[in-house]
């Protein structure tokens, strides 16, 4: 008796058997509890009664729903229901097909008598004998149809003994599952009989090819690779080209000796059918192959036939990180097996239309690809291999006079060999679709999809794992982003919010450097940098070396050489001419300072403060700040005058009032002085002052791995080239173990803020720093006493108000700052790694979304 049943690792197992045949017991014994979906249980869930036949429709709807979720997630699912009727099994077969997994039937065929007696022992199963009899006859009638119904594996257990004998359900790996093999690989596009080019490419890739004796394993070639790399052929080895038989021999040798993998292409399959004697149309280059095969032995032809027959539709390598298939593969089909999967691997997806060249119109599945795995494919000849959503088509039409391309994995490096000649004239010119300056990815990125930003979202970042965006925050961000922000292609970064220092315990201060320094010390940081905080507007500047870079790297046409935007992604400038002049000046300064050469880059993203505040905040200053100052000054003066007159009449209590209004008057004066410090008229570029403080990213590099002194020094050298527009930021390095340095920086801050400065920002020496509990605040601001009047209101400093205001909590602000910081760095990294725009955009969008969380705006 059989002790085991084999099922594919991803399958839908349908138990078939009449009531009382022991399905539930069987399932419980051999499968995980969560793998088993029982119709009785579903009946109970929807009706509180597991025998309620009236609830069957609802129960099965639920059962199918759960099954489809499980299969979607790639989990074995067992259906514990009688399933004795063809109609009951049909939707299950369909379900398996929909999810490209294999249906398995396990029939428990137990004599009616035994089932009846088992049911008799269960008081809740009081349905009559006729029910069991009917089920049994339905089962008997349809059992032989199982194969025709679509079950790929069928097990029939004919007695309780046979059922009990089964000790284990063995799960077989699918042929396409090569997850444990992680390369390195050299993935090679459509060869189409171009034997010479293939030889040259393999040599260039570091393979050694030796001719050897023809035998069943070698087929005349022995290929080795010193670095233990494996070649992966994407199919379409044959047809159209000059020497398909030799290509076959070479590839068969390599596959047989384990130095290569191969997936089948549509041409290979057609040849296989031909060799098998099937009736196929001999065209599209097959005629050439047949001719070339004329001299080959029957033995070789048989082996070739067998080789082609055994090719597996696609492979999933490297823990699911790499998928190879001839025509590509959608995420939901990866690692699955069905006719539909095989067909997709071979032909891709077509719309059913025919284009002007008589070729089927292909549906560009890759433009909607959102999968985690990289997909490398061929099939459709393209002039250049290009990334699109982590997929790449490397069929560069060698046989049509293009080139033969290989992709090195994991290096993601392309290696190409030019075709020696045009072997076949293409029906459609290779570059017929290439009338744009933008890459496929950039063209696709021209339009973001709303599905990539709305709803509750989870973004995984390197710095802080998963960051959750709540739906209501996405809603708010969508409005800000679409109404006010710039072209999203420029928005590769948004700065995080910054928390102030803990509230000071000194009575006259709300914030003081003590607490900022103490925070970092408590996190185990020994060295910090204290930078003067400029009071202007935060501005992110992206500048390219030339217009060409704007097109190539950013995919933007006709929008100038860069962008300068605010912390919410809005264009900083309303005046296009001024904007251009400004960006030109920054570009020139970078050029003069040798920045492009030094960093081997043609673009840069800078984090800056752009002054004066009044340049961007003119309306705010007039409507709010100056208005308060103007009204208060007049009103307070008049009040004091009237109080003074009353005082002359010697009315009791007026003196205190005069004192109190005089104090208000002084605070208002301080307030007006404070905001005036940050205002000056701006008419031309020279009236601006730009203070960069982070060199965020350049080509290939995100500079968050450098310490802040590096950033300051790098910026200094650029500022020197245009000291009219640009200014360095004064800063001090402080050793937190050195009391005199701490006192020094406090004195510096006091002096700075007394002179009208906003305050300073304290940062750990390293851009990204970790403390005892993980990532720590990348910066803490410490604002001056006078400056805070324009944040907390002119009268905040009265002792009565101060008492109230000191009761503030920073927890939320700090948590936000960390999450936004992680998202910001993530967006830069994704951009630098050339990920699709939506991946960058989701982080930038995330920062905006988080910014809509309710936090005290004064912090």
């Amino acid at each position, binding site marked *: 008796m059989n002790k085991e049943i084999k099922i594919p690792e991803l399958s839908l197992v349908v138990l078939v058997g009449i009531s009382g045949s022991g399905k539930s017991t069987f399932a419980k014994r051999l499968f995980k509890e969560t793998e088993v979906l029982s119709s009785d249980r579903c009946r109970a869930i929807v009706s509180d009664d597991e025998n309620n036949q009236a609830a069957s429709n609802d129960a099965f709807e639920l059962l199918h729903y759960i099954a489809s979720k499980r299969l979607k997630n790639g989990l074995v699912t067992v259906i514990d229901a009688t399933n004795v009727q063809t109609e009951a099994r049909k939707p299950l077969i369909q379900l398996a097909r929909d999810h490209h997994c294999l249906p398995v039937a396990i029939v428990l065929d137990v004599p009616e008598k035994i089932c009846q007696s088992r049911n008799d022992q269960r008081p809740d199963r009081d349905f009559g004998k006729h029910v069991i009899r009917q089920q049994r006859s339905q089962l008997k009638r349809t059992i032989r149809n199982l194969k025709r119904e679509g079950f790929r594996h069928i097990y029939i257990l004919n007695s309780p003994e046979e059922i009990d004998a089964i000790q284990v359900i063995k799960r077989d790996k699918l042929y396409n599952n090569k997850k444990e093999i992680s390369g390195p690989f050299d993935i090679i596009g459509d060869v189409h009989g171009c034997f010479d080019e293939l030889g040259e490419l393999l040599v260039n890739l570091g393979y050694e090819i030796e001719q050897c004796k023809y035998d069943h394993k070698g087929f005349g070639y022995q290929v080795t690779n010193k670095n233990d790399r494996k070649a992966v052929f994407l199919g379409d080895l044959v047809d159209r080209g000059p020497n398909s038989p030799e290509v076959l021999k070479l590839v068969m040798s390599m596959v047989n000796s384990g130095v290569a993998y191969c997936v089948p292409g549509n041409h290979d399959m057609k040849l296989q059918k031909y060799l098998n004697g099937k009736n196929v149309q001999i065209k599209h280059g097959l005629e050439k192959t047949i001719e070339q095969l004329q001299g080959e032995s029957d033995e070789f032809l048989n082996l070739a036939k067998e080789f082609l027959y055994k090719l597996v539709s696609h492979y999933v390598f490297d823990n699911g990180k790499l998928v190879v298939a001839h025509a590509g593969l959608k995420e939901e089909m990866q690692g699955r097996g069905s006719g539909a999967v095989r067909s997709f691997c071979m032909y891709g997806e077509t719309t059913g239309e025919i284009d002007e060249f008589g070729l089927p119109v292909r549906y560009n599945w890759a433009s909607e690809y959102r999968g985690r795995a990289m997909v490398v494919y061929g099939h459709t000849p393209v002039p250049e291999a290009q990334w699109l959503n982590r997929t790449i088509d490397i069929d560069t039409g060698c046989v049509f006079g293009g080139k033969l391309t290989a992709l090195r994995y994991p290096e993601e490096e392309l290696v190409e060999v030019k075709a020696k000649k045009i072997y076949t004239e293409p029906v459609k010119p290779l570059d017929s679709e290439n009338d744009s300056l933008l890459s496929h990815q950039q063209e696709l990125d*021209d*339009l*973001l*999809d*709303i*599905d990539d*930003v*709305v709803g509750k979202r989870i973004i995984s970042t390197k710095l802080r794992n998963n960051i959750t965006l709540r739906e209501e925050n996405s*809603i*708010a961000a*969508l*409005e800000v*982003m*679409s*109404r006010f922000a*710039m072209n999203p292609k420029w928005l590769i970064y948004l700065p995080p919010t910054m928390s102030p220092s803990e509230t000071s315990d000194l009575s006259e201060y709300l914030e003081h450097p003590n607490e900022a320094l103490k925070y970092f010390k408590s996190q185990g940081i020994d060295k910090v940098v204290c930078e003067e905080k400029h009071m202007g507007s935060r501005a992110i500047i992206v500048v390219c070396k030339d217009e060409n870079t704007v097109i190539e790297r950013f995919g933007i046409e*006709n929008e100038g050489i860069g962008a300068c935007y605010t912390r919410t992604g809005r264009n900083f400038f309303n005046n296009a001419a001024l904007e251009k002049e400004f960006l030109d000046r920054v570009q020139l300064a970078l050029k003069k300072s040798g920045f492009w050469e030094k960093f081997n880059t043609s673009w840069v993203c800078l984090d800056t403060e752009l002054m004066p505040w009044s340049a961007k905040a003119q309306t*705010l*200053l*007039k409507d*709010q*700040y*100056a*208005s*308060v*100052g*103007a*009204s*208060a000054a*007049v*009103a*307070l003066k*008049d*009040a004091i005058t*009237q*109080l003074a007159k*009353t005082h002359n*009449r010697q*009315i*009791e*209590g*007026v003196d205190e*009032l005069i004192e*109190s209004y005089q104090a208000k008057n002084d605070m208002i004066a301080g307030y*007006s002085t404070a905001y*005036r410090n940050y205002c000056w*008229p701006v008419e031309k570029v020279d009236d601006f002052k730009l203070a960069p403080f982070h060199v965020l990213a350049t080509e290939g590099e995100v500079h968050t791995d450098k310490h802040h002194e590096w950033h300051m020094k790098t910026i200094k050298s650029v500022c020197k080239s245009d000291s009219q527009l640009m200014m360095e930021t004064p800063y001090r390095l402080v050793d937190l173990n050195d009391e005199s340095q701490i006192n020094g920086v406090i004195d510096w801050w006091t002096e700075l803020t007394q002179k009208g400065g906003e305050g300073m920002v304290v940062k750990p020496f390293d851009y990204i720093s970790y403390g005892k509990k993980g990532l720590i605040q990348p910066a803490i601001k410490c604002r001056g006493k006078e400056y805070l009047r*324009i*944040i*907390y*209101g*002119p*009268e*905040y400093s009265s002792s*009565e*108000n101060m008492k*109230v*205001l000191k009761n503030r909590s920073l927890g939320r602000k700090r948590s936000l700052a960390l999450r936004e910081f992680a998202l910001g760095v993530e967006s830069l990294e994704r951009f630098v790694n050339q990920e699709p725009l939506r991946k960058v955009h989701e982080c930038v969008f995330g920062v905006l979304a988080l910014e809509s969380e309710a936090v005290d*705006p*004064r912090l």
Partner: protein
Amino acid sequence: MLLNISTTHTPATDLSFLLHKHPDKLQSVDLSSGKAHIFYPEANQERCAACLLLDINPIELVKNSRNNNNDFALAHYVNDRPYVASSFMSVAISKAFSTALNGKCSKRPELVDQVMPFQVTISVLPAPKGGEFLIRKLFEPLGYDVNLERYQLDSTFPEWGESKYYTLQLSGKFKLKDLLSHLYVLIPSLDNNKHYWISQSEVEKLLQKGEGWLGNHPEKEQITKRYLKGIGGLTRNALDRLLDGDGDENSPEAEESNPEVDEVKETLHQQRLRQTFQELKISGAKSVVDLGCGEGKLLKMLLKEKQFERILGMDVSYRTLEKAVERLHYDEMPPKQKERINLIQGALTYRDKRLDGFDAAAIIEVIEHLDLNRLKAFERVIFQFSKPKVVVLTTPNKEYNQLFETMALDSFRHADHRFEWTRKEFRDWAENAANANGYQVEIKSVGEEDKNVGAPSQMAIFKLNNHE
């Protein structure tokens, strides 16, 4: 912040009886966010002056304030409320001088109806959107001599210009109770910014304090509208009652921008919607998506027509959508009607599958809110991907702007407009977009046409080629 009322009535100290406040004492009353002090800088036979001085604690103010919708996050903390005459002053008047305001004087009842010469100084009074012109229009018809001093925003930056603040001096002969009523209503009306939530009871207060004078005031509409902070429903209600039930159907509804432009815009907008509705109807469309549906004016019209079986409203502003839900009484809709309509948040610069499969799209006064360089994305979303069979789209005709007298040269009709097009610019864009995407386009005008500059608004009707 400071109200000074003085009289030269003989004996002037009668004022203290009327105010029911002792002239030789400093007195204070509590307000919700602070205090008001009452004192007399002068009190003799010839001249008596009483001051009402507000002492608002700005921090308290924040605690008591509701979430206002100011774009400026710090507006709560940095604002002029403690220093100006506003609705706080009205509250202080009613608290400190309640008997006088209500025309009572137990000790000297004969004084109540006595007309006296008064001089009133208010420092400072904000009068946004109207200024000196408005102040005069409000006070002069009541018989006041008006004297105004206006202040610079900031003497350090003279280029910032004048502020909205004035010291207002009024003089005239009045009964004190009337004078106080005038101030009670007109101060907040000028300030145009209530510190508390406006509800129906506010209409009652207004009518009560305005009894006997507001109904005949030539500026009653504006006073009412501003006093009730432009809340449309309340304003109509109050005006109806002022006009003795003689309801005015065309009273302007509250809109955020310039009132002068508004009135024209209002009727123009109705015209635009009617015309759009007609086009949609003629097109035979059964399903319609209204992109940028706002508060749902067009949706409401569409719902009434049974030809439209499926209606989708989309807007980028969630708050606006919430208002649309309210205005359409969505939650109370019968199920059959509810089935026909749906509202979603979305943006026209993102591809959106929810917009697929509609017969028609209405895009009314929307594109001018997009930056010009984002228009390409918009075109792709609509014409390349969603591909409705008919698209009705409107935008302002820039040429017509010169006929709006109140509009500054080279400005836009709305602060959020990113561009406005001439007729040629619009036609060129529409024809290009149509050609590139397989549509035919027809241009029509909306509103009364001027022979030189055309109609105020323009409409393009796009039709997808070869569809059954």
